[in-house]
């Protein structure tokens, strides 16, 4: 990475007129120094900060199709047209064939799979279940999210890119007191009207009386100029990675750009939709297979793009609930309870499936219809938070939660 040519090589705030009072010039040299600091971090020998990336699969993904439990004797009686010929993984579980780009990551122990994971106070309403999960408080909705509460416990400076949602609005999980950015794409994260407008607004917010506006303004102009000066929105993926040309592929590509640019990203959040497959879900091919193909190709490209940087990154897929064990009358599945998850990245005890399998017999199913929850999703999230953000943060994320270690990271 090169030094941005706009960053003056000057000591922080030490030159020009107006020393000792807020002034445009000293302010700008400060900004320049921060930009330089951001840009030069890759050159320094300090290790990259670890980052947590969550990918919310909205709609409730069918865990029994995504990771079919091949050895469960009841499965064939529950699934007819929806049968998936999974690629064997470990201990009787398999991977949907559309996800085969993930197989090398599983085999090289960088990908772990979890099954029968879900919420302890489940809801079959998307609305409630997504909110309960993102609030981090089962059965309750909060004004803020579990990731935001975890971030609040981080010490030190808060670089503007510390928490980023690659989606049009801030999701519940990142809402709250800790500052977080949301934009649908890096290319949209800029002040319209060119650099003259940028400079004018920068000066206006520099003298804003309201402290929150002044601080947010500084973050906004610092981070948008960084994106602009680095050409971040058009940076090429590394290591020959090719992303699917889909909304998910573009968002993952942008997250990788932020990680490569070493902007201090600690939490990145994005989402993909289309998993609410009540109708015509499909089997090896079809509606769900297409969504999974996008997911598998996207995650594989992300891993390839990051290269060794993946060692410091933890990627999680989450979903609000699984789906009914038995296929419904419209060749689909209805809202269920437990589902499966992927954990990708450094330190993961990969190459294995973590599952306390409850079975699919009628008496094992939750309320007679859904795969039962044997692993609290908060346990997975808490271990990922500990790995990526540090110890002692999961408690704020999940108030009242009593952990039961899975040993997901080793």
């Amino acid at each position, binding site marked *: 990475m090169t030094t941005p040519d706009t960053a003056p090589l000057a000591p922080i705030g030490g030159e020009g007129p107006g020393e000792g009072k807020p002034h445009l010039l000293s302010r700008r040299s400060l900004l320049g120094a921060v930009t330089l600091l951001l840009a030069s971090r890759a050159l320094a020998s300090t290790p990259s900060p670890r980052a947590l990336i969550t990918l919310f699969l909205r709609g409730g993904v069918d865990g029994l199709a995504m990771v079919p439990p091949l050895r469960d004797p009841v499965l064939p009686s529950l699934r007819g047209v929806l049968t998936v010929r999974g690629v064997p993984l470990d201990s009787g579980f398999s991977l949907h064939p559309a996800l085969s780009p993930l197989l090398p990551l599983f085999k090289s122990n960088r990908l772990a799979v979890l099954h029968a994971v879900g919420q302890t106070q489940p809801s079959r309403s998307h609305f409630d279940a997504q909110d309960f999960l993102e609030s981090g408080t089962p059965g309750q909705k909060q004004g803020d999210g579990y990731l935001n509460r975890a971030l609040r416990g981080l010490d030190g400076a808060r670089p503007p890119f510390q928490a980023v949602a690659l989606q049009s609005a801030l999701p519940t999980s990142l809402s709250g007191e800790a500052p*977080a950015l949301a934009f649908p794409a890096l290319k949209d994260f800029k002040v319209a009207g060119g650099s003259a407008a940028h*400079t004018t607004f920068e000066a206006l917010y520099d*003298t804003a009386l309201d402290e929150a*506006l002044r601080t*947010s303004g500084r973050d906004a102009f610092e981070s948008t100029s960084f994106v602009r000066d680095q050409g971040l929105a058009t940076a090429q993926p590394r290591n020959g990675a090719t992303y699917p040309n889909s909304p998910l592929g573009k968002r993952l590509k942008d997250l990788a750009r932020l990680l490569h640019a070493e902007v201090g990203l600690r939490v990145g959040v994005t989402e993909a939709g289309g998993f609410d497959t009540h109708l015509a879900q*499909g089997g090896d091919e079809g509606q769900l297979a297409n969504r999974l193909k996008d997911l598998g190709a996207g995650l594989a490209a992300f891993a390839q793009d990051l290269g060794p940087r993946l060692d410091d990154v933890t990627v999680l897929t989450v979903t609000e609930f699984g789906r009914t064990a038995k296929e419904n009358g419209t060749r689909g599945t209805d809202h269920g309870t437990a589902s499966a998850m992927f954990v990708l990245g450094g330190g993961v005890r990969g190459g294995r499936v973590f599952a306390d399998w409850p079975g699919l017999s009628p008496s094992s199913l939750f309320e007679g219809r859904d795969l039962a929850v044997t692993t609290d999703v908060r346990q997975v999230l808490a271990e990922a938070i500990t790995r990526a953000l540090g110890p002692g943060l999961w408690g704020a994320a999940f108030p009242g939660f009593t952990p039961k270690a899975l040993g997901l990271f080793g």
Partner: protein
Amino acid sequence: MRAALTVALLLSVGCAGPGPKPAAPGEEAVVRLPTTSLGEEERVAHLLNRAAFGPSPQDVERVQAMGVEAWLAEQLAPGVDAEVAHRLSGFKTLKLSVADAFHAYPPVQQRLEAMGVDPTKLEGDAEARAQLKKMIKENKEELPVQLLVEATQAKLHRAVQSKRQLEEVLVDFWFNHFNVSAEKNRTRWMVTAFEREAIRPHVFGRFRELLGATAKHPAMLWYLDNWMSVRDGFEPPKGLPSAEVMPRGLNENYARELLELHTLGVDAGYTQDDVREAARALTGWTLEVKPKSQAFGQFLFRPRVHDAGEKHVFGLTLPAGGGQDDGEALLDYLARHPATARHVAKKLCVRFVSDSPPAALVEKVAAEFLATDGDLRATVLAIFQAPEFWAPGAVGAKTKTPLEFVVSSVRAVGTLDEVQRPLAQPLEALGQPLYRCAPPTGYAEVAGPWVSAGALVTRINFGLKLASGRVPGVLVALPPAQASTEATLDAVALRVLGHAPTPATRASLLRALAARDAEAVDEVRAVTPSLIAGLLLGSPDFQKQ
């Protein structure tokens, strides 16, 4: 400045239950505004920033012509706004009952079935899929999402154009206080009716009526699950469909929010037992849930699922056998509780005065609420009549929510001809999509959640786009360019902000505009009123009200 104006306020009557005697119709009330050190321009702008969705040239002129007191008196007892009524007459969904809305805008799957297309055949049947596509294309205007589109359009129309500005501000406030979300499946068919039937008629009425209207409305019964709350031990008859629609056991969701959010407030000192007892009292308050019924959405009391035992809620005893009256007695009690008065007063003061309003002001407003048996017109008036409202420190003390920002921007620079997507989109990007706030808390009334780097970039970009006439449906009309850039800036700033900008903002803008002027080639002006307006809309000054 001291002014007193006597106006006849038609105070509402007909409250049920105990409490002070309501004011008689036609009783004279006095709008007496306190002394303030604010200048006239600032005073008008401040009032329009709080009692309206920001200054528009038309409203500034009206307030100046009528006087602040007379305008406020009119706002508290508004007449018909024929212009807006006419404007909204073309909307198809605003007056529909819940059942009619459901039948005219049915779910896609139901429409397919009605066409004779078997949704199970879609997968392997290209013709069925083609029919689905055709159906969606042909019925674009009758898909359920249209209900939300029209509700959003109507709300923005009213907020920008209505002469009944205070009513619109209060409808927004009380909808948010009693929040329901169109995101929760069937609530989508109910939000328009909720605002029309449960909120709007009561914003100048009594709190008890407002509370009762929300409690019995299908939108609330559905959104907070009270429709499915049944007494412990109730066994539904055999042969009913799946577990999803099978009410089982007590559901505390509504009862909890009723105490925490709608009435007493979280710090009132009630316990989990009180929540449970309140939920018991409200068992049987349900609605017709069968969408195919013409009565879909109507309130029903079902004695069979009601818990007939004695209940004790936070100092209230409900004797056994009260039936539906349990719920009424509970609402009577909660509506008149001093903790409710404080909770409501605080929230109104946060909306109208500042994020941390003076305790003395909250006490004063709560006292008015209690003394008038929850007369919401008198309660709101108490805020405007308080010196704290007019204190210089209160001016510009609030940060605009995304809705306030978007609406006040349009009011500042022009008029609204049609609400198109680019006007509603920033509300989504900024985290405040209308009628879609998922948690029952409603959207925040304080600045914290709305101020962030990303949000500022979105606001700045929207302001630039709007002022340059690139938001379709908004007709921009700004003061013409003056002889000097400085004079143009002052004229445009007065229009956009309603008052002079802060000295720092004015100085910054003059510097920036001078640099642009220097770049101008020949007679082509680089600095135009729309550029200035765009910079002002994105400025820190305009984010405050």
